[in-house]
């Protein structure tokens, strides 16, 4: 019964690799989007901040699957371009997690006390410098747990990409199952792999927080 995993190990490993790849790209892009949106909202940049608020509200009210399907089917139909399932996944995931990260990062930025900002300004730093040297470092480091939590969510989300035939871990596992039909073994294996990956990332997050969080 366990042979089925061993026999297909290369294919499943390739799936895991794809999962990690997609996660990595979406994490990087999503964090960039999140940081920019958070800053725009924190600084209340006219017009841009309002647009960002709409973006966050829209994404937070939508299921990931629907955002994915929208990016894969609806947008190409509307604008007449072709896209691959892989890139539709990366795009929709980045946009999706970006909205949640934006809120977490914004909360971090807002947690920096205005008096500290005043003190920094009083020493002759410009607002831009204060943001770069004081608000961002402290703000981001104070929300490491929520940010890592979003990253773990993202890794779990990648399973949804299997629905549009992306060859990540879940997708490949289902393909194997379609051939050999051992759902109990295969799904247990897949569950354990996700468990290990998620726990590893969480553990890393806990270390990161212990090392870098700012004590006041």
């Amino acid at each position, binding site marked *: 019964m366990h042979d089925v995993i061993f026999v297909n190990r290369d294919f499943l490993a390739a799936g895991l690799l794809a999962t990690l790849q997609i996660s990595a790209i979406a994490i990087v892009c999503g964090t960039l989007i999140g940081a920019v949106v958070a800053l725009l909202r924190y600084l209340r940049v006219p017009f841009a901040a309002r647009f960002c608020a709409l973006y966050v509200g*829209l994404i*937070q*009210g*939508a*299921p*990931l*699957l*629907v*955002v994915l*399907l*929208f990016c894969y*089917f*609806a*947008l190409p*139909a*509307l*604008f*007449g371009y072709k896209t691959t399932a892989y890139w539709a996944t990366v795009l929709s995931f980045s946009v999706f997690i970006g909205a*949640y990260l934006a*809120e*977490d990062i914004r909360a971090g930025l807002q947690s920096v006390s205005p008096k500290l900002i005043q003190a920094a300004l009083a020493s002759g730093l410009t607002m831009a410098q204060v943001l770069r040297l004081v608000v961002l470092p402290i703000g981001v480091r104070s929300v490491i*747990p*929520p940010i890592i*939590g*979003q990253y*773990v*969510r993202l890794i*779990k*989300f990648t*399973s*949804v990409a*299997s*629905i549009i035939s992306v060859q990540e871990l*879940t997708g490949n596992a*289902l393909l194997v*199952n379609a051939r050999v039909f051992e*759902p*109990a073994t295969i*799904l*247990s294996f*897949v*569950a354990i792999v*996700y*468990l290990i990956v*998620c*726990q590893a990332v969480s553990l890393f997050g806990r270390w990161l927080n212990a090392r870098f969080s700012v004590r006041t």
Partner: protein
Amino acid sequence: MNYSFDWSALWLHRDLIVSGFITTVELASISLVLATVLGMVIGTCGAVGSRGLRVFAVGWVELIRSVPLLIHMYIWYMALAVLKLPAFACAVLALSIYSSAYVTEIVRAGIENLPAGQAKAALASGLTQFQTLRLVIYPQVLRRILPSLASVFSQLIKDSSLASVIAVADITYEAGALDGMTFRTFEVYAMTLVLYLVLVSIVNRLLGALLGSSMRASRPSPRELSDA
């Protein structure tokens, strides 16, 4: 952009949209009730139970939460197909158990954060453990965690979209069907997005109105709740 909009196709098949909407609401509601019950039981064990129970509760939460919801759905639908459960039941079970992990955390934290004096005073006045829970602890905890539970409901509605993958005829499933029938891809998926947005907004506002000040007082932390 050469796309010509045709929204009438949606109106033509409004019966499918409505039935999908109803299925989603049913799915989310039933799962919420089950998730809350299960979550409260395990969460209470995790907070006030014996050492073994506490370890179990923590381990259970970590295990359930670390496995993607989609895998939960497939497990019930495929791996446990021997139980011959209909797709809707599989979706309910998967959603309930998955969400209960989050409720467990919320309940456990809620009970632990209650001032210790409460339980001590209750026990000192002669109430049994069970009475203490029922009359003193739960009422206070429930009031404090309601905003977080509202978030769980909100998240459940969005998570329920995955049921479409195991052929439950919810909003997302019907959207796929509609796309296949009308080829009005953009209109169909735009409408799907709007439907979920509206549903989630209504739920948030309703719960906000029902809970009033307790909702505004303690904002739920959406980071504890997650997934598609």
